[in-house]
């Protein structure tokens, strides 16, 4: 069975849009988490997903690299497109998707291995053909971590500070040459200085990667992102349970200075949420 080619060469007419959802709904068992989500993630930009707790930001993010497959009882309706490939197609190779669409988690989770092997492992299992030492150095430099760790590459990744660990996780993601990087509240476990370092890094990575970031911190969304999607819990659903919807999806400047949706305005000014 031939799985669809996931290379960007086949990207077709929507070349500026990397990821796109169409009428996406997500259900955990009987309860609905997300309803009718339609957004398009632009290439080489940072898209922020903001909204109150429990509105489904992380659930939406995990749809993009099929991490939701790991959750039993989760059901997805609607379509998710990666370039022109339907990610929900049963013929899609999930492993290939996750290499093209990398992910950084809320809590830094380096492997309990050396710093070198933290980077090299992903490349190795994906059959990397080039010079591994060079790759490790390049990824660590790209993640602005090289100068801090170049003398202790054989030390455990778990011995680094929280902020360094998170940059190591980003470097690890870069090593498998993804096109998109999904970040699930990457700074929520970090101090302000480490947060600033990661934010600078994101700005720098934008040139080569498309970034989607979930954040609780509206200031952060405002600082780093080009586009912002504000998710809300919609109470006007017949089931009587609140379901996550996209209240507004627009350029960050506009969303924060001149929101069209009253709920967005209430949320960003701190009246709800």
């Amino acid at each position, binding site marked *: 069975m031939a799985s669809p080619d996931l290379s960007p060469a086949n990207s077709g007419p929507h070349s500026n849009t990397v990821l796109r959802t169409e009428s996406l709904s997500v259900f955990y068992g009987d309860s609905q988490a997300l309803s009718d989500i339609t957004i398009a993630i632009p290439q080489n930009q940072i898209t922020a997903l903001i909204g109150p707790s429990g509105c489904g930001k992380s659930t939406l993010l995990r749809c993009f690299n099929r991490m939701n497959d*790991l959750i039993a009882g989760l059901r997805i309706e609607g379509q998710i497109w990666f370039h022109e490939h339907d990610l929900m197609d049963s013929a899609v190779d999930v*492993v290939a998707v*996750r*290499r093209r669409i*990398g992910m950084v*988690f809320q809590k830094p*989770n380096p*492997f*309990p291995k050396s710093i070198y092997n933290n980077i090299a492992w992903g490349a190795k299992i994906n059959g990397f053909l080039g010079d591994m030492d060079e790759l490790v150095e390049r990824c660590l430099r790209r993640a602005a971590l090289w100068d801090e760790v170049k003398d202790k590459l054989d030390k455990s990744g*778990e011995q680094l500070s929280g902020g360094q660990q998170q940059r190591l996780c980003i470097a690890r993601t870069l090593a498998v040459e993804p096109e998109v990087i999904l970040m699930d509240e990457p700074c929520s476990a970090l101090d302000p200085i480490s947060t600033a370092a990661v934010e600078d890094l994101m700005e720098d990575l934008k040139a080569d990667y498309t970034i989607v970031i979930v954040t609780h911190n509206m200031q952060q969304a405002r600082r780093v992102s080009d586009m912002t999607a504000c998710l809300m819990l919609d109470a006007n659903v017949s089931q009587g349970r609140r379901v996550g919807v996209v209240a507004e999806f627009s350029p960050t400047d506009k969303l924060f200075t001149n929101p069209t949706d009253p709920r967005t305005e209430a949320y960003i000014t701190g009246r709800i949420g």
Partner: protein
Amino acid sequence: MSVKSLNKPANWSSADPHFRPNRRRRAIMDPLFRWVCFFATFLGVVFLGTVLGAVFLRVLYPAGAGAKSGIPLGERFSDACALLRRLVVNKPGIEASEVGYRVGLVGSAWLLLFVILIAVPVGVGAALYLEEYTGKSRWKTLVQTNIANLAGVPSIVYGLLGLTLFQRGLGFKSLALGPCVLAGSLTLSLLILPVIVIATQEALRAVPQSLRLAALALGATRWQMIRDHLLPTAAPGILTGTILGVSRAIGETAPLLMVGAAASLLKVTRGPLDRYTALPVEIFYNAKEPDESFSTVAAGGILLLLCLLLTMNFFAIWIRQRTSKRPGLAGSMRTKRGG
């Protein structure tokens, strides 16, 4: 209530209209319970000490025809050492002063080898399937309950199962293994399979979920994730459980009596399809001998068996201690981290 009244215990009851604690009862019950718990612990230690002491005395003061009294302790020790050496080297025979456990020791070694080869891959594989490949389902609950129940089945029942299934091949001549090492190993493997499955499951559950997610998000297959991250992290737990399970198998006598371990075998076992006997089985038959001098032989055998088992258990504890001190694994072994 003022601070002043706290300093005057005598006045408490009169000062406080709502509480009247029974002070005398408290003063008795609290230490009493402590002593009850202490004796519960002490009892176990005393019994272990008694068993070990009795065995040592029996080896140091042989009973029966060869018994001599009035020898100094030093000489007794060298006698006992000579006895143990003889027990390891010699084969069984008619004279109590000549017999040894060589055939049983070799048989036990063969059993050990095949039990590890059979039970570890099957047990670890089953645990991996249950923990990593199945979600919550009724089928998993059913299997899980069955495994927990199997761990409590008496070993003689496994002996009967092994007799029917492996030695007699359910009545089919071509499937019957006969009374050989392989039949015994298969039976013992079944016996300790639940122990290994449960220990491995516990070890896998202690691996933080974030480690799995990290590996899968890089485009790893489940097998690559299991091979490079899950198994190395869970290895100490798996190894500890395996050693404890295997040491139980080595000490078992009842199931082996069912699957044709020989009472007395003169030929050392040379392969998986040879006839065999095991150390505990030989001890059992020696202890049954009417000739009193054989009881020293039995005691010596018990000493050998205890040394073997205590060494294995010591290794299991040592591995567990060592890993819980290692910085990289410490957190992940003790607690679940991440969501």
